[in-house]
């Protein structure tokens, strides 16, 4: 290697996001060095800003009260995660339409711009998966294909996101029949374990189904390091929160998020 090549190599290694890409390559190719075929590697997906005008998606470069709220959420959550050394975080709510997917998506976008923080957003609401539709992602298959046995390598449906070097999305495009049993299967339990083990520095955000409406949460609770509870002002009932506190049992609650609020910080700085 001559000096020019050496300088080019050093420059390449120092480029931001290099470690993330290398880690992803490692994931795609497998830890045993076995190289999978190139077509196993999914193309990156694009978050098209123009398509999201009718969606309450807050991109990291936005300003305003909602953007401020998600930055606060990101920073406070990161502090707690580092304190407890947590990596697999479930985003849960008591019932549907309380904003858990929206919180998961906006939180993942916000976390992905944090330096040295890789994020994997997993749509584990196998009853009504909606991460891909919320972001209007154009992908052909997701977790449902893995559960149906059409693919074996989860990395085939783990999509890197254009413009977000540290964000990966594992979507589900359709519901999985018998999701609770599917999640309880040895294959799924191993998959969840491998997701956590594959990249120790990566934060995994799991969009989970409503706690009071399915039992899916209970089948994967052992893999979670903590949960964030999402409630919606004027919709979430107090008795529902009491009931989910019983369901959560010993799972660590990292914090709560109040959505759709009319009492937010209006002061600008």
């Amino acid at each position, binding site marked *: 290697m001559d000096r020019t090549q050496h300088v080019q190599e050093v420059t390449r290694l120092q480029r931001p996001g290099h470690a993330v890409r290398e880690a992803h390559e490692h994931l795609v190719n497998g830890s045993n060095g076995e190289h999978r075929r190139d077509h196993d590697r999914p193309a990156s997906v694009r978050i098209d800003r123009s398509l999201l*005008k*009718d*969606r*309450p998606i*807050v991109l990291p470069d936005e300003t305003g*009260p*909602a953007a401020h*709220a*998600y930055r*606060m*959420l990101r920073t*406070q*959550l990161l502090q707690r995660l580092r304190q407890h050394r947590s990596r697999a975080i479930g985003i849960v709510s008591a019932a549907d339409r309380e*904003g858990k997917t929206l*919180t998961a998506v906006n939180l993942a976008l916000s976390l992905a711009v944090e330096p040295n923080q890789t994020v994997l957003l997993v749509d584990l609401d196998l009853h009504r998966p909606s991460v891909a539709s919320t972001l209007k992602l154009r992908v052909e298959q997701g977790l449902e294909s893995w559960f149906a046995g059409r693919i074996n390598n989860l990395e085939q449906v783990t999509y890197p996101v254009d413009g977000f070097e540290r964000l990966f999305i594992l979507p589900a495009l359709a519901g999985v029949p018998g999701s609770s049993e599917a999640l309880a299967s040895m294959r799924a339990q191993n998959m969840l374990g491998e997701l956590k083990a594959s990249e120790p520095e990566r934060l995994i955000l799991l969009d989970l189904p409503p706690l009071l409406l399915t039992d899916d949460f209970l089948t994967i609770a052992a893999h979670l390091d903590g949960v*964030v*509870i999402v*409630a919606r002002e004027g919709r979430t009932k*107090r008795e529902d*929160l*009491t009931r989910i*506190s019983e369901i959560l049992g010993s799972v660590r*609650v*990292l*914090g*709560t*998020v*109040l*959505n*759709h*609020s*009319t*009492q*937010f*910080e209006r002061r600008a700085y």
Partner: protein
Amino acid sequence: MLDVFSVPMLAIVPRIITAADIALRRRRVAYTVVTVVVLGIVSIAAIHLFYRPLDVLWFAAMRHLGI
């Protein structure tokens, strides 16, 4: 939530108004205005047809006001 979970509230997220929300609000305002105008016209027509003709009412009102 604080008293149920004894954990901090990490964020209070305001309602996010999207372009679709604004369009919906505009549609609702337009429907309300159209409904009010139509109801007004129907009410006036009903008075004219079923109670007393509007010109008679007009002159009665003028006389009442002493004009």
